[in-house]
């Protein structure tokens, strides 16, 4: 049994010896370096580009939008974002001009000798300004996309509510901050093929973007993923921009072109988590049952649409949290501003929605004087209940288990009532969050993508997986090899991978949306099952037995003949299976579980095939004079369906939780005039080893019948609940609820002052 075991990471040895090659570790003899010249204003007409004297311009190659042979777009949803600005810039840092040079230093020096002049236009820099639509920067109302989901009769239900609780919550930008910055090498071959390699989550996204840019057929664009130093969504759609720039320069200068951003540039150029303003109005019975809810979410999309409609959609669907409320209306819109476009980031709209909904539960619990635990128990979803989109949950609903587990493991009830002795100026607080996250694409998304994967026998008699799902640290290669090994009676080390190259592997869909294990892992399992069936069939015909009698165990194929057990090694069987055809490869394609129904127009039905559930308890100590917050302990319980590899699953949960705690406590982008002030690791603060205490991670296995061995997607889930549990703990310590994150000393002080005024 290899599934369920914490086998070592497949590429672990390469990563601890320095042998793993990331994009910046590749060097070619004739390589040139690319540099991007960006807008310094938020909204303006470009009136001129001057190439200053004092630089020998014959030593470099320049490219602008006129060099794009087909469509000047970063192909995604609306195709509204140009790869390079033409006459108008819509945000600071928008790319305008590209420079290639034989050295990085020369390209940078050239960039310093470019002077761009602008005629400034009024800029829309905040959600409020955008909503007022005084200055129109997208359509008539600055709204990229809006959704409304309604169930029951909201107005009537509010009439009968005994208590109404209303509050508005704010969250800001968050930077993914993968430690490896974005980087791409592009090569334009003499036959017109464009070769891209680099750091990315979704090779086929880049493939499509490059095809659109140059009007090329599938086979003329080859995209290869290199070892990737973290993504977290930040390398979902954004690498298409870097790849487009590098490809354009490579075509023009005739050399391979490398663009690897320095940290400061990566920070300002790449997408971030959407800031949001979320208003909750909730009607309840006096004893704390939800009967009516109105939730309004507004996301700041930035200057271009990117993936914003999809991010908002996920936020809307998760807006209530894992609770039942018969009468509910959720409205959501994502608006345009003259700030850098926001995009994918682990959680994808849910961390914003979850912060608001869980802090609202905290507020309700205070207002009604009901314990946070009782409030959750009264309203939580159970098997058979309906979500806000009208989806009935019929399997793998771990709500009660995760709540019970986290309370027990953290000793929440005792610790909340018997608080530690208080030092004069320090107060202890304990906070709870309870949340869920849908696995895979929303609604009919997976049906449209039809993710594929294949497995094949190798000449050495082992097995190779062919998939476009990328290894970005989350463990794709390790868990896929466990799944295939399990199916075929092999060891994970007997399973290898085809290079993640669009000319070699099928499109498994993007490596996003908590879908790699649950969706693509299932497809890989199906492909392995087909391979097994085919091998059994071929061996059975040679051995003159029934295919169904052949067992795959211990790296052997076994069957009985005349009361004797016959055994052939897997390698030998593989060789025999390929003796006539020379190869054996099976491909599988995803299909939704039976009975899944989704209506894109009314936004109702089965939003996701299954949800993963979790609960967090965070304990803090708050200095009542300086409002410094020290996190003392973090406990999480997660219903993962099945942990294919428990160590890797814990790693996902711990890492995601720490990102969430950073979101709640320090991570904030500071702005002035549409420019980012803290684009460095010295002033954009992410948690260090000293900010985070030891964590307890409880895995609960509540199998999902259509996932590989029962596994559900958990990549994003841990990003959702950390911030609200932390802020609830602060509220428990100081007595006031902070409604805007990060919960800086300044905001904690303000919340306490506000509470004092109200009292």
């Amino acid at each position: 049994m290899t599934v369920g075991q914490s086998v070592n990471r497949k590429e672990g040895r390469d990563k601890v010896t320095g042998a793993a090659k990331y994009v910046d570790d590749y060097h070619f003899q004739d390589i040139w370096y690319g540099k991007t010249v960006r807008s310094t204003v938020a909204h303006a007409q470009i009136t001129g580009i001057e190439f200053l004297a004092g630089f020998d311009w014959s030593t470099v190659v320049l490219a602008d939008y006129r060099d794009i042979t087909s469509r000047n777009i970063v192909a995604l949803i609306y195709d509204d974002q140009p790869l390079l600005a033409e006459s108008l810039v819509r945000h600071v840092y928008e790319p305008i001009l590209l420079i290639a040079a034989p050295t990085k230093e020369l390209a940078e020096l050239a960039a310093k000798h470019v002077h761009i002049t602008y005629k400034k236009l009024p800029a829309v820099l905040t959600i409020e300004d955008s909503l007022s639509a005084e200055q129109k920067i997208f359509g008539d109302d600055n709204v990229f996309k809006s959704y409304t989901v309604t169930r029951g009769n909201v107005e009537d239900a509010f009439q009968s509510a005994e208590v109404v609780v209303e509050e508005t919550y704010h969250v800001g930008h968050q930077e993914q901050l993968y430690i490896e910055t974005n980087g791409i090498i592009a090569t334009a071959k003499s036959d017109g093929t464009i070769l891209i390699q680099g750091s990315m989550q979704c090779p086929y996204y880049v493939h499509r973007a490059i095809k659109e840019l140059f009007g090329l057929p599938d086979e003329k664009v080859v995209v290869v993923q290199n070892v990737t130093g973290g993504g977290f969504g930040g390398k979902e759609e954004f690498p298409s921009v870097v790849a487009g720039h590098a490809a354009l320069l490579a075509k023009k200068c005739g050399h391979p072109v490398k663009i690897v951003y320095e940290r400061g540039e990566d920070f300002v150029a790449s997408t971030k988590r959407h800031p949001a303003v979320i208003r909750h109005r909730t009607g309840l019975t006096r004893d704390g049952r939800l009967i009516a809810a109105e939730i309004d979410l507004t996301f700041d999309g930035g200057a271009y649409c990117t993936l914003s409609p999809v991010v908002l959609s996920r936020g809307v669907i998760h807006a209530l949290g894992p609770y039942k409320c018969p009468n509910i209306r959720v409205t959501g819109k994502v608006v345009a501003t003259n700030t850098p476009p926001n995009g994918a980031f682990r959680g994808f709209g849910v961390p914003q929605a979850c912060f608001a909904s869980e802090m609202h539960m905290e507020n309700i619990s205070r207002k009604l004087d009901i314990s946070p635990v009782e409030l959750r128990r009264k309203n939580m979803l159970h098997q058979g209940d309906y979500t806000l989109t009208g989806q009935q949950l019929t399997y793998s609903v771990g709500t009660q288990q995760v709540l019970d587990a986290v309370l027990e493991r953290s000793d929440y009830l005792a610790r909340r009532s018997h608080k530690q002795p208080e030092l004069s100026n320090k107060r202890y607080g304990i906070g709870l969050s309870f949340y869920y996250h849908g696995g895979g694409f929303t609604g009919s998304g997976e049906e449209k993508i039809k993710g594929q994967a294949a497995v094949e026998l190798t000449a050495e008699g082992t097995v190779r997986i062919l998939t476009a799902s990328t290894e970005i640290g989350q463990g794709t290669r390790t868990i896929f090899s466990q799944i295939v090994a399990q199916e075929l009676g092999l060891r994970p080390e007997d399973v290898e991978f085809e290079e993640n190259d669009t000319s070699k592997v099928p499109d498994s869909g993007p490596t996003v949306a908590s879908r790699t294990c649950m969706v693509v892992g299932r497809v890989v399992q199906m492909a392995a099952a087909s391979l097994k069936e085919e091998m059994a069939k071929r061996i059975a015909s040679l051995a003159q037995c029934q295919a169904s009698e052949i067992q795959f165990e211990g790296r052997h194929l076994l069957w009985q003949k005349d009361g004797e057990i016959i055994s052939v090694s897997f390698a030998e069987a593989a060789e025999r299976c390929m003796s006539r055809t020379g190869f054996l490869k099976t491909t599988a394609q995803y299909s939704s579980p039976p009975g899944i129904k989704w209506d894109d127009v009314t936004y109702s039905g089965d939003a996701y095939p299954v949800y993963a559930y979790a609960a967090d308890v965070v304990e803090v100590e708050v200095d009542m004079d300086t409002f410094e917050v020290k996190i003392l302990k973090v406990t999480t319980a997660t219903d993962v369906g099945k942990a294919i590899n428990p160590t890797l699953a814990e790693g996902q949960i711990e890492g995601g939780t720490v990102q969430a705690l950073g979101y709640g406590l320090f991570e904030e982008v500071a702005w002035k005039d549409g420019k980012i002030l803290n684009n460095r690791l010295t002033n954009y603060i992410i948690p260090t080893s000293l900010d985070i205490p030891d964590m307890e991670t409880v895995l609960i296995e509540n199998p999902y019948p259509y996932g590989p061995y029962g596994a559900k997607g958990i990549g994003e889930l841990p990003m959702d609940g950390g911030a609200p549990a932390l802020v609830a703990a602060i509220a428990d310590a100081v007595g006031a609820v902070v409604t805007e994150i990060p919960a800086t000393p300044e905001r904690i002080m303000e919340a306490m002052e506000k509470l004092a005024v109200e009292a």
Partner: protein
Amino acid sequence: MAIKIVVNGQDLEVSVSPMKRLLDVLRQDCYLTGTKEGCGEGECGACSVLVDGEVINSCLVPVCQVEGSEIVTVEGLAENGKLVPVQEAFIKYGAAQCGICIPGMLMAAQALLDSKELSKQTPTRYEIREAIAGNLCRCTGYMKIVDAIEAAALSTLEKK
């Protein structure tokens, strides 16, 4: 300018600008790309290497600063392909995810394991956290890294 350094036990003479960052000399002139750049200003620690036994950020140090010094990079940890305890532990405990911070993290960990104090007792988990506080990791949440270093410290002490 010719500068002599010892890298992973090998005497080298590199002909570079004296103010070239040690990081660039290692990656470009010594072809040792295991050492990574994460921020270029000493905040993330991905470029950490040992210089005469002390852990430093190679992105902040001009090569002339380490003239004549002994430098150890991640490539110099294992001997003839045999991993040192901290490398073994990082694999076993799942301390590496995306892996980009790991070369630097391992050097900070090794500096702790090599420190004199460790000849008597293993470091506490808090001391381990202090030792890697200059190394940012965005993937793991540090738990499994601390677990791995703790285990490596124990096995190192047992060998001593």
